[in-house]
């Protein structure tokens, strides 16, 4: 026995000795090389969620009963009913590690992977978004990583023909060496179109279609995405990044949709991390329980590949379908029409075993559930030693501007800082128009896509994350970003409906990281319950750390909303002169984790703003009602940089100035980041109607001024010509990235 353990390279494949022993015990023998490869990728952190599973269970039971949820956690992506016979599926996923190693292909294949997840549910992919976080904007490595990531997203998404409707861009030293590249896709289907990822019906054929299998990405899930970057390891990891072909993916999308429409698919699974190993074990485990696969029938790009490499390869643009034997010819004919390579590689059995052969020799014979379920770890967790000191480091002690010129300088510093500056340098590289249904895209608070041309039904989507809030308090920080995404959807006039999440953290083997993770998941579960919207799915990305230094806990939350009539959507842009501005919500002096403290003082300490989920619900229902009644000409969420940044963005977006009087202390009014707030422009003459509606919804509000002129004017403090504001706002990213 000991000799066997020494002989098999489990550690190189990322398995612990105990995990290796568990495989031996499950099989009652030493695993074959192919089996070892299969278990190593399936039991990787990336595929098995072995460290997060016990926490993520909170998200499912905590789901508020929602009639809208058609498929929840555990599927490729959750599915939500949006009415009129339509359903929507959406999910966000990380591609952090590959994007650091090879930014262009890493980010490109991140888009490709999430699109196949949505496709596998039976939906037509309708739009994508990207939440991006990098190290300091001026750091030399950021100049390598950021342009590559953006060009990769541009290359893949544009060629695939999906509008990129929004996302995020932020910078913080904690992401140097660990950039976050989180890609979201949303798809639309009719209710009856839902597909299942299960291999049912013994005798049904298993078909692998799409790209041929090559050596790219072998071990990506186990070695790359499930281990922290060391100092010397990069050269070894470089070949692990996959290479994307968006043209092939476009054909694969059209091919799959035609296969679905023709009723040719019994079950389907996309191939992502862990490739054939994952697709076969998950399909078999979720279906009748058995499958026989002839691995030598897998079309290869490199004929030298053997069973372990074929199982582990993460070659892109592949899908696996289960098809009734009598319909295989029809299936293959649709693939031929779209010039998609397809091969029958096996069939469903009722043996309870996943058996794979290689030129007649059995190389895998396992119970599929043992690989699909994976181990479960109760990792130790401990409150970070530095947490108390961080909480005690109150930003109230920071020097503040005391006069008009000081406030003006701080406002300009914020709108010109890389994280808050105009993002056209990035978003101009993305196609936001393709498919002709994009109603709102960046720099709006949410993307908004029309679903039905006749009725105006649409979906709004926003993603938000904030590592600074997460570092100050993972529980509250997660609720704050959930609140912000929820509010971003609401300001368009849409009703928030469902949540997806991408939880980006350091190493789960660090108890302090696990403490952060546990707090974040609990915050999300409690927050969703309070908001009355379910979590429909998500993704965990651990090991975002270099050496012993982890990133800030950075849950990125996506919220989906339904808009009953996109013609009544609200933009952030003040465009109607004479509209009166109303600040909604309550403003407290809350500066912990704020953009002001970060940009002006490089400070991170104190307590984050207090979330108020009940107030968020009231605000959202007021905004939906006001939009439907046509009372508003604009609405903008208040978050990073507070009212100051919101006013600047709304003036620039609409091309009109404004004149406001600030209630109370001007510094607090301008830069506090209190939650549950928005600024709205009320159409001239409808002020009383809006005030009545606001009262009925129990939302506090103050009239602060009007849309007017060509300057952003704060009475008694300062005036900034829009041209000056625009120059500062638009200069930052081109100066950094060319």
């Amino acid at each position: 026995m000991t000799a066997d353990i020494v002989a098999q390279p489990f550690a190189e494949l990322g398995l612990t000795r105990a995990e290796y022993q568990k495989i031996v015990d499950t099989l009652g023998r030493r695993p074959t090389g192919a089996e070892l490869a299969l278990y190593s990728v399936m039991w990787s952190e990336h595929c098995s969620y072995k460290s997060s599973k016990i926490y993520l269970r909170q998200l499912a039971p905590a789901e508020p009963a929602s009639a809208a949820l058609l498929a929840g956690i555990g599927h490729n992506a959750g599915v939500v009913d949006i009415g009129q016979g339509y359903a929507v599926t959406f999910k966000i996923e990380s591609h952090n590690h590959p994007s650091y190693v090879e930014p262009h292909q890493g980010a490109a294949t991140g888009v490709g992977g999430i699109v196949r997840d949505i496709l596998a549910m039976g939906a037509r992919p309708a739009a994508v978004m990207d939440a991006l976080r990098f190290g300091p904007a001026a750091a030399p490595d950021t100049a390598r990583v950021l342009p590559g990531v953006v060009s990769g997203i541009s290359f893949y998404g544009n060629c695939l023909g999906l509008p990129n409707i929004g996302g995020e861009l932020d910078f913080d030293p904690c992401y140097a060496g660990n950039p976050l590249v989180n890609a979201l896709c949303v798809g639309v289907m009719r209710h009856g179109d839902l597909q299942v990822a299960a291999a049912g019906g013994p005798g049904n054929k298993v078909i692998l279609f799409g790209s041929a299998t090559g050596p790219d990405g072998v071990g990506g899930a186990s070695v790359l995405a499930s281990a922290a970057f060391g100092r010397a390891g990069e050269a070894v990891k470089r070949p692990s990044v996959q290479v994307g072909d968006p043209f092939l993916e476009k054909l694969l999308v059209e091919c799959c949709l035609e296969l679905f429409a023709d009723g040719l698919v019994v079950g389907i699974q996309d191939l992502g991390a862990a490739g054939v190993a994952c697709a076969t074990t998950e399909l078999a485990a979720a279906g009748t329980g058995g499958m026989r696969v002839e691995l030598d029938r897998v079309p290869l790009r490199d004929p030298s590949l053997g069973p372990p490499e074929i199982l582990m390869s993460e070659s892109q643009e592949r899908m696996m379908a289960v098809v009734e034997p009598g319909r295989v010819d029809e299936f293959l004919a649709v693939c031929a029409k779209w010039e998609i390579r397809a091969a029958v590689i096996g069939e469903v059995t009722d043996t309870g075993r996943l058996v794979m052969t290689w030129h007649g020799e059995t190389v895998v014979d396992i119970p599929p559930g043992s690989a699909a379920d994976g181990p479960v770890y109760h990792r130790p967790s401990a409150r970070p030693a530095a947490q108390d000191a961080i909480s005690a480091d109150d930003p109230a002690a920071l020097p503040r501007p005391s006069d008009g010129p000081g406030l003006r300088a701080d406002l300009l510093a914020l709108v010109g800082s890389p994280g808050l500056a105009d993002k056209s340098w990035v978003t101009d590289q993305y196609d936001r128009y393709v498919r002709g249904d994009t109603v709102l895209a960046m720099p709006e608070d949410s993307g908004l896509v029309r679903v039905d041309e006749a009725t105006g039904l649409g979906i709004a989507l926003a993603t938000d994350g904030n590592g600074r809030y997460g570092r100050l308090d993972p529980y509250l920080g997660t609720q704050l970003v959930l609140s912000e995404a929820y509010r971003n959807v609401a300001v368009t006039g849409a009703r928030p409906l469902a949540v997806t999440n991408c939880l980006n953290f350091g190493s789960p083997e660090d108890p302090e990281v696990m403490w952060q993770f546990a707090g974040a998941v609990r915050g999300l579960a409690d927050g969703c319950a309070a908001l009355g919207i379910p979590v429909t799915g998500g993704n965990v990305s651990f090991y975002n750390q270099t050496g012993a230094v982890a990133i800030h806990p950075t849950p990125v939350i996506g919220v989906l909303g339904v808009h009953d009539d996109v013609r009544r959507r609200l933009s952030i842009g003040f465009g109607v002169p004479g509209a009166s501005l109303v600040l909604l919500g309550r403003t407290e002096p809350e500066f912990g984790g704020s953009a002001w403290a970060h940009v002006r003082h490089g400070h991170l300490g104190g307590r984050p703003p207090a979330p108020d989920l009940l107030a968020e619900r009231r605000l959202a229902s007021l905004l939906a009602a006001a939009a439907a009644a046509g009372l508003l000409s604009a609405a903008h969420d208040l978050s990073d940089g507070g009212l100051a940044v919101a006013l600047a963005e709304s003036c620039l977006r609409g091309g009109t100035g404004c004149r406001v009087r600030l209630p109370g202390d001007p510094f607090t009014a301008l830069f506090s980041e209190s939650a549950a707030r928005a600024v709205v422009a009320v159409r001239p003459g409808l002020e009383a109607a809006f005030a009545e509606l606001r009262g009925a919804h129990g939302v506090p509000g103050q009239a602060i001024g009007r849309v007017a002129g060509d300057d952003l004017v704060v009475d008694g403090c300062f005036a900034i010509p829009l041209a000056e504001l625009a120059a500062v706002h638009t200069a930052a990213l081109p100066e950094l990235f060319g």
Partner: protein
Amino acid sequence: MRVGVITFPGSLDDRDAARAVRLAGAEPVTLWHGDRDLRGVAAVILPGGFSYGDYLRCGAIARFAPVMSELIPAARAGLPVLGICNGFQILCEAQLLPGALTRNSGLRFVTRDVRLRMENARTPWTRAYAGGEEIVVPLKSGAGCYAADPRTLAGLEASGQVVIRYADSDPNGSAGGIAGVCNAEGNVVGLMPHPEHAVDPLTGPSADGLRFFTSIVAAVLR
């Protein structure tokens, strides 16, 4: 009236072109790249996208598609043809239009609402515009830099074959700020910006692009 929209492998804006045709009051007809059949349509649009993944060169493979063996002689015989973005690239590769589209001078993909000046409002695709009129439609391309040798450029300018031009700054380095050209007869027009994405202010920067499609309806019906 029926207007064909060709779908090549990798065409992306075919749906949008069909919508624009419908909004203009005509019936869009899907033409499949693999069929040697124009299905009796009165005009044809080659939509935007990445036909064949832009492999080799943008449009270089699509020009050999079976449907092109019908389209090329029909266009030479006077059939109105509009190429948008990748469609423009294909028409240049097929030598139905002069010049070539090369990589943007900034080497990055550019999506931007651009102001354009209508230079030739006499083609069947532009008659609903006024000569010299300025319109705003989206540009979205990675290889939109129009290039031709100096003699060709001079000839295009002299003969009025420059149909449309970037009115403000040149977003991609195109020679003479050229955004679109036509053949000598005027029935074949190609442009890089996307009029089909400017047919409704709800989903585009304006409705300025719609008149490309109402122009052809009026021209054919006349």
